Every structure is written in C-alpha cells, then in structure tokens.
C-alpha cells in the first residue's frame, strides 16, 4: 500500500478548497497536480537562473543548459531509451503533429494509416490532414463490442497497404490499455511503423520502449506531475533520422546560406528550434523522481484499487450508467440518467469534486459507446478511498432538481 499521507503532503493544492469544500480532484486525465519539488524547480529557476540555454558563454547559462540536458537523461532512463532519442516538445499535441507531418513524405497514394475510433483528436487530425494531402487512407481497427481492439481481426487489419499504425496506448475515455505488444510485433513482421500516443500511459504504467520495440511515442509533461508547456517525443534513432523537422529556426541548424542550403544539426537537437519551455522541462526531472519514488507499478495498482472501489460502490445505483465497466486503469466514464453531463459536473463541483464532462476530445468515440457526452472521473496516485466514497455519496443523492437549484 502507498503511504498516501506522505504522497498527499507533497501536493500543496490538496490543501485548498473548491466551492468552499476540500478539493477532490478527479480530473487527472486532463492534467495532473504538481508536487512541491516541481514547483520549487520552477520558482528557483525563475528567481535565480532565468537565462537562456544552449550556450556556455557564461556560468549561469552553462549551468541551466546542463540541467536541461539532465532532464533529457532522466526521461531517457524513465522509458529506457537512449538519450539522443528524446526530443522535447511543447506537449503531446505538438509531438503527435511532428510525427504525422514529419513522416508525410513517406506516404504514397493508396497507403493506409491504421488507427482507432477511440483515439484523441491530437492524434487523429494530423493524420487525417496528411492522408488528404498524400491521397492516403485512414482505416480503423475493428473493435469488440466494449470498445477493445479485436485481436482476432488483427491479421486482416494489418493488410499489405498499411504503412503506419498510430494509436492511443491508453484511451483517455475508455481507460483500456491497448494490446500494443501484439500489434507492434505483428506490425514489425510486416515492416509497418508503430506510433503510440502515450498521453495517458507514460504517467500510469511502466514504459520500456526497448522492450516494447515501439517506433515513436509522444506524451505531455503536464499529465505526469510536471508544469504545462513541455512534452516528449521519443523516436527510435533510425526513425528520428527519417523524420522531417517541421519547426525550423534558431538552434536547429548547423549552417545555412543565402542559396537556401541548410544543414540541420543532428538528432535530437534538429527538432528543438527556438527557445524551449526551460523551467518546465527541467522540472520534468523532479516529476520523474517523484513517480520513481512511488514506483510506477504501485501507481497503476493504486488507480485500479480506487477504480474497483468506485465501480463496486455504484454498481447498484440504477440512475448511473457506466460505459467502460472493464476499464484497465483509473479512468471511468458514466452518466446520470436524465442529467446532462455538464450539469452533473457542475453539481459535483459545488461539492468540491472536479470531474470532466464532454467528449474528451475523442470525437469518434460515439461509434463505440453510443453517446457523445459523458462524465469522466480519472484517479491518480494522490487520490484516496475516502475521496471516492465522497463522490459515491454525492452521486447517490444527485437529482435534476438539485442540479437546477444551483441556478435559482
């Protein structure tokens, strides 16, 4: 069991209130809270080391450049990659766009990109765009009734026209862990490239890119206890070198001349044009230290305990429909009968509870669950059974009248 007091003490926001009630934060799939060590990094840098990186012209700049590179080393270790396979981005969305646009030149007419209906707009839209431009096609994995990738149809799905497979590792709506080991193995036998959207996985389950043998992986720091503005794009060295850099500028080039001849720097520097989010990137290292101090295995276990507790407590509630009862992670989506998701969320907010309402940016998800708008509670390492119980109690008594009463 986790030492939750010790963990919670590290998150100052957990001492605050919302609507006058102690904050119960269950919107972890949107973003996670930040531990004091991460906050301290940012404050320290802004207060006493706020200089630019990438040059050792003076001591402060040298020191902060070093810290920036140390963050890269930490990230590499965290996912078992080589340090020059780690590109810092502004977030998962930038990383996923960089992959799609950066691989665009490999696409020919008729090529197929395989993805899922549960994927996030940040992974689907860039591919829809490049597919249009290259006259390539998007296809979707066949799903089982509950929304899992149908492994029995894998052989069919990975037909000879498929070039890239891009999919969410853990769905931010259904909470399912996709069977990426099987997919990657079969894909590589057929010379296909596999890209994972790790926005909901890297902070929740142990990730080993070498063992997984995945070609690309992108995620956001803010969903793993870091500040906003930073993300990571991992690519196997040989694939990063095949990726066209789509953001060009200061720091990315070794040389260029009037004739338009440009020599880019080597990987990964080539992809990091311009001044990055220095404080946020450096703070990522402290975030990883926090996660390591708890242990990724324990984090996942804890989420599952909370989720199971929640599901068992509400299973008799006739007015609640859960759309992903077999979720593998701390993500649960549900609705209250007769109450629009946002109204229910607002009611929970009045009790200090933060959950998300909407389509969660996975706009094809209605193909799977039949509805577009749901409530999402997503649990993380600092959440407690007591907090879940509180949610259960509020849900037990929720009525449309009570929701409407907030406004009259």
């Amino acid at each position: 069991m986790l030492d939750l007091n010790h963990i919670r003490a590290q998150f100052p926001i957990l001492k605050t209130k919302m609507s006058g009630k102690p904050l119960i934060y269950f919107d972890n799939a949107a973003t996670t809270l930040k531990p004091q060590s991460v906050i301290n990094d940012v404050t320290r840098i802004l207060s006493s080391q706020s200089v630019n990186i990438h040059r050792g012209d003076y001591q402060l700049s040298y020191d902060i450049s070093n810290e920036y590179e140390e963050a890269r080393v930490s990230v590499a270790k965290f996912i078992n990659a080589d340090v020059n396979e780690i590109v810092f981005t502004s977030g998962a969305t930038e990383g996923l766009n960089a992959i799609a646009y950066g691989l665009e030149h490999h696409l020919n007419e008729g090529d197929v990109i395989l993805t899922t209906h549960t994927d996030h707009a940040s992974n689907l839209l860039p591919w829809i765009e490049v597919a249009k431009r290259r006259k390539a096609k998007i296809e979707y994995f066949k799903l089982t009734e509950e929304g899992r990738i149908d492994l029995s149809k894998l052989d069919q799905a990975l037909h000879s026209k498929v070039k890239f497979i891009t999919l969410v590792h853990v769905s931010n709506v259904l909470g399912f862990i996709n069977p990426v080991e099987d997919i990657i193995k079969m894909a590589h036998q057929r010379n296909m490239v596999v890209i994972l959207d790790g926005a909901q996985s890297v902070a929740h389950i142990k990730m080993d890119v070498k063992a997984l043998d995945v070609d690309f992986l992108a995620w956001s720091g803010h969903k793993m206890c870091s500040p906003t503005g930073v993300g990571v794009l991992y690519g196997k060295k040989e694939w990063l070198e095949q990726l066209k850099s789509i953001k060009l500028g200061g720091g990315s080039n070794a040389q260029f001349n009037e004739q338009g001849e440009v020599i880019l720097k080597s990987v990964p520097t080539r992809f990091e044009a311009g001044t990055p989010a220095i404080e946020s990137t450096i703070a990522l290292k402290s975030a990883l230290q926090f996660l390591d101090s708890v242990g990724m295995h324990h984090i996942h276990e804890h989420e599952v305990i909370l989720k199971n507790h929640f599901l068992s407590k509400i299973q008799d509630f006739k007015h609640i429909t859960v759309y992903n009862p077999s979720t593998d992670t701390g993500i649960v989506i549900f609705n209250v009968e007769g109450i629009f998701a946002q109204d229910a969320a607002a009611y929970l907010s009045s009790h200090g509870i933060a959950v998300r309402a909407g389509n969660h940016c996975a706009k094809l998800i209605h193909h799977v669950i039949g509805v577009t708008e749901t409530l999402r509670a997503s649990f993380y390492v600092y959440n407690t059974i007591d907090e879940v119980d509180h949610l259960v109690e509020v849900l037990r008594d929720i009525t449309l009248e009570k929701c409407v009463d907030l406004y009259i």
Partner: protein
Amino acid sequence: MDINDPQLMRSIIMDHYQYPRNRRECHDHDCKSVHMNSESCIDDIMVYVKLDHGVIKDFRFTGQACTISTASTSILSELVKGKTLDEAKHIIMEYRKMVNLESFDAETLEEAIAFSNIGKQANRIKCALIGWDALSQIIAESEE
C-alpha cells in the same frame, strides 16, 4: 409569476429541459440557421429562424445541451415566435440585463425570469445565452 418562488422557477427550468419546445430541425430554404458551440460549455446546438417581413415566423433548435442552455433556448422559442424583430430585440435586451444582474422588466421576460439568478454563476452565463446569442446573430445578419 413570483420571481421569489424557487419551486416555481425550478419547475419552469425542469419542464423546459425535459420537454423542450420547438426542438426540431428546419430545412426550409427560407430558414436561416446558425451553429453555436461555446468554449466553456459542451453545448452544441443549431438554431433555425424563419423571418418574414420583419416578423419571426418560426424559431426552432436542435442539439445536445445542458439544462440551462436547453431550457433558456426553449423559453426563448416561445417568447419570440410571432414577434416583430423590434419586439424580439427588446426581449433579448431585457434578458441580457437580467443575466448581467442589472434591473430588468420582468413582465417582458415571462418564464425567462427563471434565470434571474444565473448571473451569480458566472460559469454558466454563456449557457444561458447560447440560444439568445444565436438569435441576435441572425437578426443582425438579416438587417445588414
């Protein structure tokens, strides 16, 4: 109607949410439509308005929306149907005053006074305005 009767106000909102009036599409060629969705609200509604010689002949809407958006748009639909553009603009103006917690003419707003306290819940004001903004937009465009 007694604005200080919370039970009455609540029942108006619930009734319009559960049984929204004029919720259906309109594909007539003389039906102007506008698609509204707001950043701060997951609402996503279509508003259809048929104008004829300065009179609102029809007002309909469709889409997924919260209690506040649905009920306020439903009430609006009943309020403005058959009204002239000037009358509608007056109603909208009074409604906006109310939503901004200014003094307003309760008479004009009829059931819409159910939202007289929505201005205290800043995060839902946009919901209470979504249908009304749509109508304002259609009126403005018709007058260009």
